[in-house]
C-alpha cells in the first residue's frame, strides 16, 4: 500500500522528487526490538538541489540513524516530519487565510457559499465574513468548511525527506539505511522429554515479530543473536556496539567451536529465502532439530540461610542436558524460551513448564527449571545455634526430604550462605563443597518415604 501512497503523492504538489521504484529490502533484526533496514533502489533527481521524500520507510523509523548513499549525490539536510495532518491542525494553519464555508439550510436544503477569513482557532473558530464576525457553527446549522490547499509539513504519516545536491540529473542506484523499532526476534525451543529413555527431542524456532506499523515486502532477512546495547531514549544519538552476555542460567559457558556465521560476539542466522514480514505478524522459521539429546531430570532444593520452615517446600524440577555434539545437540542457542513437554499416562504430549535461556554457546550445560515437584518436598529445620567464639556459630540443621512418588528419587539439597572457614562437624550423608559458600548433599529417598538429612556445621 505504500506504493499507492507514493504514486498519489505526486498529486499532492509538495514539489519533491520521488523515489518511485519498489526498493529491494534487506532487514537485519537484533534481539531487543531494533532492526537495521537497508533499502536499495534507483533514485531520480534533477541536477542541483532537490528534496527527496521517502514515504515507504518504516513507520517506527529512528530518523537520526538514516543514511542515504548514492553516486554523485550529497545530502544537504535530512528531515523527519511528524506533524500529523488533522482537521484541527489544518484550521490552525489557516488562521489569517481565507476559507469557504458552505451552509445547508435544514428547512429547505438550500446551500449558500461564502468566503470567510479565519481570525483565530482558540477554543472555537472565529471567522470574519464580509464585515461580520461570527463563530463557526455557533448556530448548529450544518456548515462545511473548504480549504484551498494543504499546508506544507503536515503529513498523513511521519515522512522522511532528504535535501540532496546532485551533480547531474538522472537515475542512479542508491542505498538507504536506517534503524527501526518494532521488529524483534527471539528463539523458541520445543523440548519433548522422555524420562524413561533419558532423551529429549529438541527443536528450535526463530520467532520474528513485526509491530513496527509497516510491512517489509519480499525482504532478505537475517537475525543476529547477541545483546545490542541500546539507549532507551530513542531519539538520542545511537550507541551501537556489542555487549557480551552470560550464558543460560545454571549453565556452564561453552567452548566448542561452531561454524555458524559469526560477527564479533554475535551469531548471524540468515533466512535464505526472501520473505514478506507483514505488519502485526509473528513469523516462525525452524532452525534446529535434534531428535535424541541425552537429558535427565533432577530434583533440587536450595536454602539461602539456615532456617526452619513450618511447611514442606517443593523441590525444583530441573531438566539438565548438555549443548554438546557428543550429547546429540551442539549448536549456539540464541536467547529464548524453552518449552518442555512430556507424555502423560495416555501417551499424549503435554506442556510441563518453560523457562528462558540466555545466548548459549556450544558446549554449555543447560539446567532448565520446569516447575515445582508436587510430590517431592524438603522441610528445613534449624535445630539449634550455639556460639563457639566471637566469630563462629555451630548450627545443627535437619532437612526432612519426603517423596510421595511411586519410585525412589534423589534430591540435591544445596545450602548457601556459608562463609570462609566453614567446617562440617558431622553429617548423616557426605556433603560436597561446590564453592566457598555452598554445600550440597545428594539425598536418596525411597518411594513413598522420607529421609532426614542432618548436619552440624560451624560457620560465621
Amino acid at each position, binding site marked *: *500500500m505504500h506504493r499507492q501512497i507514493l504514486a498519489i503523492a505526486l498529486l499532492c504538489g509538495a514539489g519533491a522528487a520521488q523515489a518511485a521504484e519498489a526498493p529491494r529490502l534487506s532487514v537485519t533484526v537484533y534481539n531487543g526490538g531494533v532492526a537495521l533496514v537497508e533499502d536499495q533502489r534507483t533514485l531520480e533527481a534533477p541536477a542541483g538541489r532537490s528534496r527527496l521524500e521517502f514515504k515507504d520507510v518504516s513507520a517506527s523509523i529512528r530518523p537520526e540513524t538514516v543514511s542515504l548513499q548514492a553516486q554523485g549525490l550529497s545530502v544537504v539536510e535530512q528531515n523527519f516530519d511528524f506533524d500529523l495532518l488533522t*482537521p484541527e491542525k489544518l484550521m490552525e494553519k489557516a488562521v489569517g487565510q481565507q476559507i469557504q464555508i458552505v451552509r445547508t439550510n435544514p428547512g429547505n436544503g438550500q446551500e449558500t457559499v461564502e468566503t470567510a477569513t479565519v481570525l483565530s482557532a482558540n477554543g472555537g473558530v472565529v471567522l470574519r465574513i464580509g464585515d461580520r464576525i461570527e463563530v463557526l457553527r455557533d448556530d448548529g446549522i450544518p456548515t462545511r468548511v473548504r480549504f*484551498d490547499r494543504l499546508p506544507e509539513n503536515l503529513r498523513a504519516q511521519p515522512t522522511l525527506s532528504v535535501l540532496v545536491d546532485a551533480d547531474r540529473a538522472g537515475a542512479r542506484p542508491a542505498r538507504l539505511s536506517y534503524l527501526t523499532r518494532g521488529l524483534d526476534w527471539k528463539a523458541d525451543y520445543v523440548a519433548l522429554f522422555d524420562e524413561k529413555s533419558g532423551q529429549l527431542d529438541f527443536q528450535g524456532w526463530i520467532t520474528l515479530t513485526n509491530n513496527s506499523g509497516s510491512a517489509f515486502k519480499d525482504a532478505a532477512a537475517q537475525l543476529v543473536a547477541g545483546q545490542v546495547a541500546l539507549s532507551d531514549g530513542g531519539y538520542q544519538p545511537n550507541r551501537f556496539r556489542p555487549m557480551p552476555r552470560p550464558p543460560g542460567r545454571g549453565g556452564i559457558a561453552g567452548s566448542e567451536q561452531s561454524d555458524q556465521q559469526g560477527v564479533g560476539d554475535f551469531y548471524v542466522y540468515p533466512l535464505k529465502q*526472501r520473505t514478506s514480514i507483514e505488519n*502485526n505478524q509473528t513469523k516462525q522459521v525452524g532452525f534446529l532439530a535434534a531428535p535424541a539429546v541425552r537429558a535427565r531430570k533432577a530434583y533440587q532444593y536450595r536454602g539461602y540461610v539456615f*532456617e526452619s520452615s513450618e511447611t514442606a517446600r517443593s523441590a525444583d524440577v530441573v531438566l539438565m542436558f548438555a549443548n554438546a555434539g557428543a550429547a546429540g545437540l551442539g549448536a549456539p542457542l540464541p536467547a529464548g524460551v524453552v518449552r518442555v513437554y512430556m507424555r502423560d499416562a495416555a501417551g499424549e504430549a503435554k*506442556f510441563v513448564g518453560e523457562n528462558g535461556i540466555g545466548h548459549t554457546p556450544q558446549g554449555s550445560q543447560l539446567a532448565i527449571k*520446569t516447575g515445582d515437584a*508436587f510430590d517431592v518436598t524438603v522441610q528445613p529445620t534449624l535445630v*539449634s545455634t550455639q556460639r563457639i567464639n566471637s566469630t563462629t556459630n555451630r548450627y545443627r540443621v535437619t532437612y526432612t526430604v519426603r517423596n510421595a512418588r511411586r519410585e525412589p528419587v534423589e534430591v540435591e539439597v544445596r545450602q548457601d550462605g556459608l562463609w570462609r572457614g566453614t567446617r562440617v562437624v558431622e553429617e548423616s550423608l557426605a556433603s560436597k563443597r561446590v564453592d566457598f559458600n555452598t554445600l550440597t548433599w545428594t539425598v536418596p529417598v525411597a518411594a513413598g518415604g522420607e529421609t532426614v538429612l542432618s548436619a552440624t556445621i560451624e560457620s560465621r
Partner: protein
Amino acid sequence: MNRAAAALSAVMLTAPLHAAAADVVAGAPSRLGVVIYRDPNGGDQGVAMIVETREVDLPAGASTLRFEGVADTLIPQTAAVQGLPAPVDERNFDYDLLSPGALVARSVGEQVRVVRTNPGTGRVSEEVGVLRSAPQGLLFETGAGIEALKCSGLPERLVFDRRPPGLSDRPTLSLRIVAPTAGRHRVVLSYLAAGFDWKANYVAQVSEDGRTLDLSGWLTLTNKTATSFPEAKTEVVAGRLARSDETRAPDVELRTVATDCWPTAPWWRRMTGYAAPPALNIPAPAPPMAMMERGLEEIVLTASRKAAQTELGDYKLYTVPDRSTVAANQTKQVAFLDKEGVAFERIYKVGHAGFDAGELTPALTLRLRNTEAQGLGSALPAGLATVMQTTAGRPMLVGEYRVEDTAVGLPVDLAIAGDRGVTAVMESLREGERTVAGKARRFANLKVTVTNTRSQPAQVEYRQSGYDEGFKLVSEDRRHALRENDPVWTLDLAPGQAASLRYEIEADAD
C-alpha cells in the same frame, strides 16, 4: 553442529516463497483436547494447551495452509503442527485486523466517495475525491478544495471501492509448505492459548460428634475466550509450572477513527508529543478480568462422576469424565475428591511476642494428615477450603482457609475462626533488668495456664516470638522445639484438663 545448519538449509532449499502458493484451508477440527494450566501466581495468566486433529488436502508444490477457528488468544510461538508431508518453510500468525481505523488508514491517498444526505430536501449527493489523512481525522480533497469529514454536521459517509488487502477479520494462523505430491493428510495442531483458568475448592463438613470430617473437592474450569471447544477431552494440570512472561498472545491493536474536529481549546493546551495521538489505539477486546466482572454467561455443574487423577511428570493430571464441550465464556465444575470420615486433630495455636504479659487468644486449627490411614491420601491441589460444622442439625460456616499444594503424607491445617474451646491465661511472675556479663539485660519470667473446656482431647501449640536484640530463652520447665526460629511448646490436654508452662526470657535492655 551441522544439524542446525542442515536443518536451516533444508528449509531453504525449497522453492522461493513468493512463487504463487496455493491457498489451502485446513478442515474443521475434531478430536479436541483442552488441558488447562492455572497461573502459578494466582493471576490471570492461566493458559490451556489445545490439541486438535484436522484433515488437510495439499496440492503438490507450494501452498499456504490456513487454520480457521483456532482460539482468539492463541500464543503463536507455541503452535506445532504434526503430520505434514514436508518441513514447514515458515509459520505466520497475522493479526492486522480490519477495523474502521485500519480501513481508512489503508485508504489514505486513494480515491473514495463521500455520500451526503441533505437534511432539508432528503437529496443524496455523491462526491469523488482522494482521502488525504486518516485515521487521526478525515481530510478529503476534491477539485473544489480540502474538507474535513464529519465536521460539518451534515450526515456524511465514506464509501470505498475495495477492501484493503492484508487485513483480516480475526488473527490467522497459517504456514507455508511445499508438498512433494498432492494428497490428503491428517495433521495434529497444538498450541497454548491465554484466557483459561481453573480453581480447586474444598468443603470440609465436620461431623456432629466433632471427631471426623467429610472432605469434598471441586474443580472449577473457566474458558474466558470467545472460542468454544466442542466434545473436548478436558483436563487440568495441578502443581506449579515454571512460566515465562513472554508466553502471551500478541497485543492486537484496534485502530479507531478520531472524531476530533475544529479546535475547542487553545492550541497551547492541546500540545501533544510527536507521533500518532493516543486515541488511535484502544486495547484488545474483552480483557478476561472485565469479563469476570460482568459475570460469565454460563455455569455448568458436572457432579455425577469424579475427575480421574493420573500423573504427568511431577504434576497431577485430572481428566474430566467423558468428552465435554468447553464453551466460550463458560465456567464448568466437576468433582475430584470425596472422602468421608477423615480423622483430624484439634490444635489450638497460641502466640505471644515480647516480654509483657497480656491476653492470649487460642485459635483452633484442624490438622489433617493426608494419608490413607487417616481417611485421606490423595494429592490436594491448592485451593480455598470452606469448613462447615453441623450444630443442632444445621450446617454452620466456621472458617475458610487456603490449602497449598499438598502431597500425600503431608499435614493440612484448616484454621477455624471463633472457637473458644481452650482458654489461656498468662502471668508475669518476675520481670525487670539485670546485668549479665557486664551488659544490661531485660528479663521476664512467665507462666501460661491452658485449659481444655471441650469434651474432645486437644493439643495446644504455644509459641514465643522475640524480636528484640539479644533475645534468648533462659530457662523452661518443658522442652521446646524450634519453629521458624521461635521456641514452640506442645501441650496435650485431655477433655477438661488444665496444664501450665513456665519459662524465662531475656534480651538486651534498649
